[in-house]
């Protein structure tokens, strides 16, 4: 049912897109997304993928063209990264508001200035409020599988919301590993063709994407919110079907590791959770009850699942490649909100690292867990700390 291949995250995702049979692809190259659009171009050239490939002149047009194509009922794909994502930001709201189930891959990359092409997650986390489902992959296999699942989730009539699949720039997009590539037959069995009433119709013409004044606007926003919330259960259903078809299991909006009896739990996103789990394993061997939570879906945000995973902890850490200047990391804000909803008075600390592609090492990770232990013992640890930033005045 599948073919094992040694692929980068970008290449794996392109394979997933091929299997999903998008009818229109419009994309503009940007590092570190570029390999995806190169592979898709090759697939179209070879005839392995039958799609209209629009060589657009900008990211703004990439998503706008995808919106136009989606309005005809076509399955569409685009991909971007960083400044490109920001450049198409206004179009994100058109896609979400129009309830067009576009799937977009975003290669997580730092945002300017200083100019930097390396991985962090400030690009997508800064756009959480634009109505897209946001999911973060940990490895190339999950990236490929998410390409297929994202269409199922986005196109589910109860959801009808675009999905942004985030891959850590370089650490995932450019790292090669073994990936099971499903057969087209299995992919087709899992993902049927897209069918919708939200499209142009020559028998019964429609107006799409109109304006709506104060008397009506709120209903659209309310429904979008309700549907996004209920997408959590659709995600579970889609993953169950995915497991039945392909034999690979995913765990919903979060993934937990050794959390059941953990005192110190570190919450993170994307590939860095892999290192967190290795460090948890080391700490467990030393008798420290550590655990790791990987948030897979930032939107819809998994309040309940997080509360359940974190409620027994003595201290929670949130490690993220993001900072909301003048506030704190956005993931931290969201996690704290979940804890507050559960009425849990668990101390939590925010660790900001990996910005602009900076390494997060095993030693850094041990340091974070040491800080969590210190907090639990009543020690003083700043609410928000930047990893690897020396004290003011120190010569680097």
């Amino acid at each position, binding site marked *: 049912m599948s073919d094992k291949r040694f692929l980068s995250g970008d290449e794996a995702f392109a394979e997933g897109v091929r299997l999903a049979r998008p009818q229109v692809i419009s994309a503009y190259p940007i590092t570190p997304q570029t390999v995806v659009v190169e592979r898709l171009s090759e697939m179209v050239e070879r005839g392995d993928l039958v799609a209209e490939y629009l060589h657009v002149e900008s990211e703004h047009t990439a998503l706008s063209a995808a919106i136009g194509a989606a309005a005809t009922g076509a399955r569409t794909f685009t991909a971007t990264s960083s400044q490109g994502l920001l450049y198409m930001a206004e179009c994100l709201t058109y896609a979400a508001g129009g309830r067009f189930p576009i799937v977009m891959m975003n290669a997580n990359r730092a945002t300017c200035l200083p100019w930097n092409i390396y991985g962090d997650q400030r690009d997508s986390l800064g756009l959480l409020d634009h109505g897209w489902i946001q999911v973060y992959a940990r490895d190339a296999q999950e990236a490929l599988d998410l390409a297929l699942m994202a269409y199922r989730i986005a196109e589910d009539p109860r959801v009808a919301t675009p999905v942004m699949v985030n891959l850590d720039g370089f650490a995932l997009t450019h790292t090669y590993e073994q990936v099971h590539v499903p057969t087209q037959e299995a992919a087709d069995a899992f993902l049927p063709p897209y069918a919708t009433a939200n499209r142009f119709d020559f028998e019964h013409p429609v*107006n799409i994407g109109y304006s709506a004044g104060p008397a009506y606007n709120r209903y659209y926003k309310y429904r979008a919110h309700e549907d996004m919330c209920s997408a959590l259960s659709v995600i579970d259903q889609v993953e169950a079907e995915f497991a039945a078809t392909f034999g690979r299991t995913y765990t919903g909006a979060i993934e937990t590791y050794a959390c059941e009896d953990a005192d110190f739990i570190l919450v993170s996103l994307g590939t860095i959770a892999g290192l967190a789990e290795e460090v948890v394993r080391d700490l467990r061997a030393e008798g420290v009850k550590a655990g790791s939570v990987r948030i897979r879906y930032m939107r819809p945000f998994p309040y309940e699942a997080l509360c359940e995973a974190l409620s027994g902890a003595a201290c929670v850490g949130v490690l993220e490649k993001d900072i909301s200047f003048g506030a704190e990391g956005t993931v931290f804000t969201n996690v704290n909100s979940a804890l507050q909803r559960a009425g849990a008075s668990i101390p939590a600390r925010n660790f900001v690292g990996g910005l602009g592609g900076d390494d997060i090492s095993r030693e850094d990770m041990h340091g974070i867990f040491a800080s969590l232990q210190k907090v639990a013992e009543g020690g003083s640890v700043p609410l928000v700390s930047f990893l690897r930033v020396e004290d003011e005045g120190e010569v680097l």
Partner: protein
Amino acid sequence: MGISSKQSGIVIPTLRQWECVPAQFDRSTCFEAGHLVERNAGWRQQRPVINADSCTSCLQCYMYCPDGAIRKTHAEEGSGQPSLFVDLDFCKGCGICVTVCRFGALAMIPEKGCDDER
């Protein structure tokens, strides 16, 4: 089918009764085309009147009306010329029809005081 007037058989956005039921529209911005719920009659301070005796059916008023509010009646059997009327539900009273008429067959009159003032 709202947009096709049953009487005339032409395709045109048409007024209809509408009830606001959010569940019927709130999941996408995709809705039946040509769905009108309001007239534009209230915009008018004056209205055009057509003097049928002077009208040559040259159709310039029909062509140049930005609102499509000069409408044709279907020609009677055997008669080649359509006659024209003003759709007072949607005429905004701009007066373009009067200025483009070379035959003086249209004139603007004050809206106030008209029997069917809307």
